[in-house]
């Protein structure tokens, strides 16, 4: 699976749900690569921007799309990685900010 193929496959699924890919391909494509790296390394697509524990059960909340995407996109217009963005974010009607970490630190086990 190439990053481009992953991008096309996910786009078809996620856009109808209102989650658009960041048009900045210098963000989105490296993130596609990182998802594939984590899939190879860990066996699942752990969030590229978070420290994964390395066990699926302990990382269930950060398997992309993570459990925090909905709240982050609703509040900031983008997920923590800046991979998924809202229509408002795309249209520039909301301010683009650094999305703070929503995951409780206790979830990091080691």
């Amino acid at each position, binding site marked *: 699976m190439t990053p481009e193929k992953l991008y096309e496959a996910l786009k078809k699924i996620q856009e109808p749900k209102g989650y658009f890919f960041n048009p900045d391909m210098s*963000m989105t494509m*490296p*993130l596609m690569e*990182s998802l594939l*790296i*984590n899939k190879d390394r860990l066996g699942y697509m752990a969030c*590229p*921007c*978070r*420290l*994964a524990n390395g066990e699926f059960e302990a990382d269930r909340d950060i398997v992309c799309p993570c459990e925090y995407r909905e709240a982050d996109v609703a509040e900031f217009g983008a997920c923590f*990685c*800046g991979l998924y963005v809202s229509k408002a974010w795309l249209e520039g009607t909301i301010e683009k900010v*650094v*999305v*703070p*970490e929503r*995951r409780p*630190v206790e979830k*990091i086990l*080691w």
Partner: protein
Amino acid sequence: MAPEVKVYALSTCIHCKKAKEYLDQCGVKYDCVHVDQLTGQERKDMVEEVKKLNPSVSFPTLVVNGETIVGFNQEKIDEALKK
């Protein structure tokens, strides 16, 4: 005096990559550690080190001239580099 910059990063994180690219553009030297590539006790110790600077242990965490900056925040980096 050359600025003292440490970057706690993840090898797969795009914000970490962008932060390092920005520092490179500014010609700033930095010491970077990829915490996801550490294992065992070394990793545990590093997580504790980051936690003291940034309780949410998110990445990147930068220390620029003694000031901790969470996330890739260009304005904050610029301000800290001026000091």
